[in-house]
């Protein structure tokens, strides 16, 4: 930690709390996100226990009332998407990687960056505070449909509901500020010589995700203001009795909500692309194809939202239209998967921990993607809607994205972030301990969903069709697997903390990668580069026939193979 001495001695507060350094802000986002994930993980443990063993006193929580159950489910979803997936995948990796990978010393607006984190922290505190107000946190599901969300007489949380809306609104503002910073930095602060197609895919993905977020969240922010007025002042935006319309919220929410899926998917896909190229020692297949597929996905993601509302009373002709667009959007995503597999084809693959996570991402996300086609068909959705089939489907997308994507990224960039190597053996134990239980949680939920189990019920005791021994066994398998998966996360935490202090010292470039972050010391000092690099070629020149070593750093002077091939 010698960087503190270069300018002046910084106090602990200056250096870690009110820092404007993009790396510290990235860590702040990451650790806040992980802390929130622990809360989200605890919530799911409590309500899964209630579902598997209805009415028991859950150890560590106690009896789960219906009000508490609703609140737990709602806030589990809210936290995992808005306070874990987004801060960790976009904000933490984006902040850490963007300046390092483009050869800059920081973001273009470091103080706006700091403000972004502070607003984010405030939003997290508001959300946590909402659990402790009378009647507890909001329980109207993370989608917050009115009238359930708008009227206290229905949701029974007169304080929790508005606090939830305020927390989500603040979080959006934080990500808008961060997103503007990300986009501007990538557009304007690249190292000399780094052209559009020399940018590492992960940065493209994070920035395209930021643009998608920015373009989709506005209507929901407006909608959130309207919802807040409905809750607090008593306006009737969503109340048909006053001339409003509850469906309006659903449109505003899902106009954001569906692009949001891609907002978190793209950074994870980007992380996986980096890892695959490095551990396959091959040039990433179809760089431009990946990029154009992502553009297509981004544009299409704005015209699929109503597939969440097939049974909400929308016009059937509109449902047809949205079925078609929904099925079309799986084409560019499938394209991405094929291109990634083509990178692996014929490669000499090293099965290191990051690579295992990257491969698991592909395999598991595929299941999530394919089951999405069922739900995108408006006819089938009439049956599947609001069953556990939907729950299993989106967990097969979001768990690979948020959890597997995060572990892929952290195991790959850990040496750069903390200057030490993670323990490979325990990394692999943690990998299998997470992946195997994960499938045992959600495959039973597919079966339960197909059997007709509805999502929003806190116990099936009073539903004889659903409270059979067979179905209850499936619920118990899912819950026990969940506890196993949660328990294996301890392995990761211990491994991380131990490696952080006692791990093998990391070299500058332990994976022999090409991108610019691997040209600076691990961990990078304040200001990153002693001498700003110049970029000569794309990021994925591995195993080039003209070279003795199998990698070709972007900043090494010499010819650009992309040019000589023309």
């Amino acid at each position, binding site marked *: 930690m010698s960087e503190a001495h270069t*300018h*002046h001695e910084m106090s602990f507060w*200056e250096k870690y709390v*009110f820092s*404007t350094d993009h790396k510290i802000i990235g860590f702040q986002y990451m650790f806040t996100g992980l802390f929130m994930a622990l809360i989200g993980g605890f919530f799911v443990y409590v309500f899964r226990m209630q579902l598997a063993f209805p009415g028991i006193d859950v150890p560590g929580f106690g009896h789960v009332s219906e009000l508490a159950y609703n609140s737990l489910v709602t806030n589990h979803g809210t936290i995992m998407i808005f306070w874990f997936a987004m801060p960790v995948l976009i904000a933490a990796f984006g902040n850490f990687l963007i*300046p390092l990978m483009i050869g*800059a*010393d*920081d*973001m*273009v*607006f*470091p*103080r706006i960056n700091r403000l972004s984190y502070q607003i984010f922290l405030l939003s997290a505190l508001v959300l946590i505070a909402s659990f402790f107000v009378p009647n507890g946190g909001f329980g109207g599901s993370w989608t917050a449909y009115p009238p359930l969300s708008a009227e206290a007489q229905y949701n029974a949380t007169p304080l929790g509901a508005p606090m939830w809306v305020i927390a989500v609104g603040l979080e959006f503002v934080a990500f*808008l500020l961060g*997103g*503007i*910073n990300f*986009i*501007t*930095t990538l*557009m*304007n*602060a*690249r190292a000399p010589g*780094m052209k559009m197609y020399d940018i590492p895919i992960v940065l493209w993905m994070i920035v395209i995700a930021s643009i998608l977020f*920015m*373009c*989709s*969240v*506005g*209507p*929901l*922010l*407006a*909608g959130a*203001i*309207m919802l807040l*007025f409905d809750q607090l*002042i*008593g*306006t*009737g*935006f969503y109340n048909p009795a*006053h*001339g*409003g*319309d509850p469906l*309006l919220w659903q449109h*505003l929410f899902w*106009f954001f909500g569906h692009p949001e899926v891609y907002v978190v998917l793209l950074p994870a896909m980007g992380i996986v692309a980096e890892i695959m190229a490095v551990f396959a020692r091959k040039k990433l297949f179809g760089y431009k194809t990946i990029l154009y597929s992502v553009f297509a996905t981004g544009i299409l993601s704005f015209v699929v939202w109503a597939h969440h509302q097939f049974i909400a009373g929308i016009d059937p002709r509109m449902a047809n239209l949205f079925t078609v667009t929904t099925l079309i959007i799986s084409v560019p995503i499938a394209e991405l998967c094929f291109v990634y597999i083509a990178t692996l084809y014929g490669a000499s693959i090293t099965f290191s921990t990051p690579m295992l996570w990257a491969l698991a991402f592909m395999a598991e996300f595929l299941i999530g993607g394919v089951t999405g086609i069922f739900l995108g068909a408006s006819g089938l959705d009439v049956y599947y809607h609001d069953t556990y089939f939907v729950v299993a489907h989106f967990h097969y997308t979001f768990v690979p994205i948020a959890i597997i994507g995060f572990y892929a990224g952290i195991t790959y960039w850990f040496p750069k972030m903390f200057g030490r190597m993670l323990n490979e053996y325990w990394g692999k134990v943690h990998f299998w301990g997470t992946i195997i239980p994960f499938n045992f949680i959600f495959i039973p939920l597919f079966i339960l969903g197909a059997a007709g189990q509805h999502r929003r019920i806190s116990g099936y005791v009073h539903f004889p069709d659903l409270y059979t021994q067979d179905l209850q066994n499936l619920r118990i398998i899912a819950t026990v697997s969940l506890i196993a998966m949660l328990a294996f996360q301890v392995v990761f935490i211990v491994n991380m903390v131990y490696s952080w202090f006692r791990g093998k010292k990391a070299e500058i470039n332990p994976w022999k990668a090409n991108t610019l972050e691997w040209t600076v010391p691990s961990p990078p000092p304040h*200001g990153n580069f002693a001498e*700003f690099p110049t970029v000569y070629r794309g990021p994925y020149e591995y195993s080039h026939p003209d070279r003795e070593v199998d990698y070709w750093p972007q900043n090494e002077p010499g010819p650009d193979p992309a040019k000589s091939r023309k």
Partner: protein
Amino acid sequence: MAFQVPVATSRSSTGIPTSRLAVWWVLASEIVIFGGLLMSYLLFRLLHTSWGYEAAHTNPYAGGFNTFVLLTSSLFVVLAHQAAEVGDTKRSFRYIWYTIAGGGVFMLVKAYEYTSEIMHGYTMLKSVFWSFYYTATGLHGFHVLCGMVIMGIIAQDVKKGKNLHRVEAIGIYWHFVDVVWIFLFPLLYIAK
């Protein structure tokens, strides 16, 4: 705390100054916020022709006057930018304050409108039209107010000859606030 502007801020890979680029992205995000609100309003409005009778109780003369005031203040901010470009900090400072004054007059007229409407019983709870009216004009007024505060801060810098490029950035923002009003005025006041 000593804050050093990083090298990244002074780079310009696109050839567009970073501050201008960032403001355009801010506007992109603002467009969808106002766009979402106005789209919701428009769709309702097309369904409920009765809202025309409610709109008849707005004051188009005050609104028209405010349109004129805002457009004039936009001219002032252009003149402030022009002065900043040639380094005439005094003139730039003066024009920035004319712009702020324009925003102030706008807010006063708006306050008068709100007061008389509320006195006549057209509160936010009267109907969804009025809910939209207060939400949209309120959100716009909030943007006017923010612009005024930021301009006040920038004016202090300009006086000392610092950060002259920020005059352009706030100018772009101010034009946007103006354009939003150009949409709000006919939609809420004139369309009957």
